[in-house]
């Protein structure tokens, strides 16, 4: 980027925070542009034929050609990209081939589902993963540590669909403790007005607790599963951060003061890993938001992960691009948010 | 012609509001073969002068010259410069690469300076700094602080420089080890005809090592004086006065 000379201008014109946020916004924009460009190029160089996705297997060459031109595929790549970019800036991601509706509308439908699931999953992951990691670090090498490790590794290494199907079989199929696949039971579908698209929130807003309970019973299992997965990651990272802090001298200082071990760990050592943890949690949250395709498939959860994947497999490039942009944006925003929190929580970050 | 000459040297870190003026308008000369001391409270800019000279502090203005040759602006220095000027850092624990043995440190330095007779030189350098050949293949964690500082000195001596910058070479060390290092430096100076620019906040050390001393406070040189004047407690500046008095020690009131 060319750096324009700012000489001679009164500095006050650009207060620091404005400049900083300018840089932040700029880098978000650059990242997003790059993301778009790469996705776009992937879409165009992929040997999957988007026309075929529309016209189907039986179409004649004539119909094919017609659609080919309608999609603008006969124009130079860069022109296609420019046109696409222009549309995106206007909030138009184009039409999805697969669903016959605007991609933006599709995303508005599938993203809240994923958001709901990923959020609950992250909450579960944090609620259990952090204490587990802390305890594992404090009791390093003990049986608790080993168990924590095995628990984490099972989460890490058993494919999520295995856990998912087993979970469904046991908790839904045999025990009947939770609702089955899908977001709500059929008879409750469409019962609450969609405000946020997240059924838990919508039903709570509507005060419809029957639906809320039903939705909750459906979401617990997939959320617990995702939670388990992020628990695995979070607890391992927590453990290693904590190990580092526990050997720090200020921990001894706290002990010198006569603090209880519990207070030393949570009041002092843990405070110091919050910042790193936030980055980790943000990363894993972003990972879940990206959509755990397999979980979504197993639980018939109409989320963004399976949306993008289905679109990709069927060469529905508008949908892939739109989905990627949204996921990318979420990712970048989460990054920025965790940076801001970082600055807020760690006095050393100025 | 002076070995080192500084004129109106300003050094700063950061830009805009973050800017820290670490050195302001420093001027002094060091004659060839002389040992020149810089003292002053912590953070007064002593190390910064050295770092500016060696190109480790990028922003500076004014004039710096080595053996009459002006140092080019910015942080680029040519190899000839590093063959003339070398530096020993304050913290021997931080100045050696944790994964390189003494042998690797010295042979790389020699290699970089174009020496090809590496083997005999390493042995001689180790000998010079009073480390036997047994130390040659050790890693830093196998060395004591004093031994590490000797390795650092050997590294600085490897290119056969004329000028050695010493940034508190003993402040991280024990008094007993300090004596050894100071003796070593004195010996090396006579042996290799070195010029020293030495930083310390221990007045006794500076007095022991140097002929002339500059006193710094808050980035400025407040006074340059001879070691005898200092010993005689004849400061020309009130700050020097307080420094001298305080260094005499604690008296129960």
């Amino acid at each position, binding site marked *: 980027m060319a750096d324009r000379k700012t000489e001679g201008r009164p500095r006050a014109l650009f207060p620091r925070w404005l400049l900083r946020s300018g840089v932040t916004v700029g880098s978000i924009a650059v990242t997003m542009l790059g993301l778009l460009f790469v996705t776009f190029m992937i879409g165009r160089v992929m040997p999957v034929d988007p026309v075929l996705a529309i016209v189907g297997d039986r179409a004649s060459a004539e119909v094919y050609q017609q659609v080919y031109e309608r999609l603008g595929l006969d124009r130079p790549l860069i022109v296609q990209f420019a046109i696409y970019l222009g549309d995106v800036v206007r909030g138009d991601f184009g039409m999805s081939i697969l669903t016959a509706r605007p991609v933006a509308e599709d995303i508005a439908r599938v993203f809240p589902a994923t958001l709901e699931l990923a959020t609950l999953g992250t909450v579960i992951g944090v609620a259990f993963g952090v204490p587990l990691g802390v305890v594992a670090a404090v009791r390093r090498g003990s049986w608790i540590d080993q168990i924590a490790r095995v628990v984490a590794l099972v989460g890490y290494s058993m494919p999520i669909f295995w856990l998912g199907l087993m979970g469904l079989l046991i908790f839904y199929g045999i025990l009947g403790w939770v609702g089955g696949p899908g977001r709500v039971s059929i008879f409750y579908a469409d019962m609450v007005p969609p405000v946020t698209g997240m059924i838990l929130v919508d039903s709570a807003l509507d005060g419809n607790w029957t639906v809320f309970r039903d939705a909750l019973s459906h979401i617990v299992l997939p959320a617990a599963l995702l939670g388990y997965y992020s628990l695995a990651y979070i607890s391992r990272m927590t453990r290693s951060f904590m190990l580092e802090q526990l050997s720090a*001298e200020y921990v*001894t200082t706290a002990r*010198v003061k006569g603090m209880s071990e519990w207070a030393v760990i949570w009041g*002092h050592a843990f*405070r110091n890993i919050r910042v790193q943890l936030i980055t980790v949690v943000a990363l894993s949250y972003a990972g879940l938001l990206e959509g755990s395709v397999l979980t979504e498939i197993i639980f018939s959860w109409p989320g963004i992960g399976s949306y993008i994947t289905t679109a990709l497999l069927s060469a529905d490039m508008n949908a892939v691009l739109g989905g990627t942009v949204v996921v990318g944006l979420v990712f970048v925003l989460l990054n920025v948010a965790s940076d801001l929190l970082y600055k807020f929580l760690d006095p050393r970050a100025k | 012609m002076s070995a080192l000459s500084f004129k109106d040297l300003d050094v700063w870190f950061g830009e805009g509001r973050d800017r820290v003026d670490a050195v302001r308008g420093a001027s002094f000369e060091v004659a060839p073969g002389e040992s020149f001391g810089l003292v002053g*409270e*912590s953070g007064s800019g002593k190390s910064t002068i050295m770092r500016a000279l060696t190109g480790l502090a990028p922003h500076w203005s004014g004039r710096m010259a080595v053996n009459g040759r002006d140092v080019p602006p910015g942080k680029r220095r040519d190899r000839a410069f590093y063959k003339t000027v070398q530096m020993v850092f304050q913290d021997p624990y931080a100045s050696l690469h944790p994964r390189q043995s003494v042998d690797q440190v010295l042979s790389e330095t020699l290699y970089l300076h174009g020496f090809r007779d590496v083997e005999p030189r390493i042995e001689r350098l180790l000998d010079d700094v009073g480390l036997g050949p047994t130390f040659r293949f050790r890693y830093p964690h196998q060395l004591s602080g004093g031994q590490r500082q000797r390795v650092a000195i050997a590294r600085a001596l490897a290119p056969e420089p004329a000028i050695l910058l010493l940034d508190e070479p003993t402040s991280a060390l024990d008094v007993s080890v300090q004596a050894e290092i100071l003796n070593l430096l004195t010996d090396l100076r006579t042996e290799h005809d070195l010029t020293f620019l030495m930083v310390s906040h221990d*007045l006794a050390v500076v007095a022991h090592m140097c002929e002339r001393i500059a006193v710094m406070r808050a980035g400025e040189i407040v006074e340059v004086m001879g070691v005898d004047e200092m010993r005689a407690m004849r400061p020309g500046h009130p700050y020097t006065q307080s420094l001298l008095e305080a260094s005499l020690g604690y008296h*129960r009131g």
Partner: protein
Amino acid sequence: MTDLLDVKDLWVRFPTRKGQFDAVRGVSFRLGRERLGIVGESGSGKSMTGRAILRLIRAPGQVEAAHIKLDGEDLLQKSEVEMRAVRGQRISMVMQDPKFSLNPVMTVGDQLIEAYRLHAKGTRAEARAKAIEMLEAVSIRDAERVMRAYPHEMSGGMGQRIMIAMMLIPDPELLIADEPTSALDVSVQAQVLQILDRLVQDRGMGLIFISHDLNLVAQFCDRVLIMYAGRVVETCDAARLHEATHPYTRGLLNSLPRFDAPQGRLEVLKRDPAWAEAPSVGPE
């Protein structure tokens, strides 16, 4: 009269790859309400001795001793919970490196207030007042601002004074100060020492003063232990440190460059393996 502190045959051991390493070996000493200096070269076990008294040696390190008695109670017999009441309240310790010894993400004020409220049941406002008072006592000028500041915003010297203030807040009977003035400018150093001095003289606090600086210890303390390789090789009255007889002590003293007169070469300590082998010099 019982001594404030009575340490007998203290060992600190670390298992290492090459077998067991004894950082402190059979150290015994007694301390009244006085200033006891511990000097010695780096690694001689000074800090470990201090920490061992508070039972703060971290695993895998082990502390063994015949007894460590504080006012006649053996600290080694206490449970971890009972020990907590001793730490801070009765024995405090100023840690060696203020840069790493303060919690980087808590304000100085919070850490000071915490130190007070752990042992005194006062309100937060009282704790705050006490904290500010202590900060001022260690000659920190802008106490209100410092309360709000974070450790990294403090210079090394300020950090050290904050540490001292923090450890003095609960009014301990015994203060172990591990090189409390090494980062201080000479002028501030004097002020801090004065505070410690007053506490010992007026309140009868016991003080263990660990330092490198032989001159300082000689001037400031009442008695001095000289440690070498985990042992006490000599103990003497501080005032007579310069007349010490042990070759190690003499070596340390002689190797110091002198400010008042030029020297040719500095004397270098010649270590004798026998020093490390000889038993610790104890009170009896």
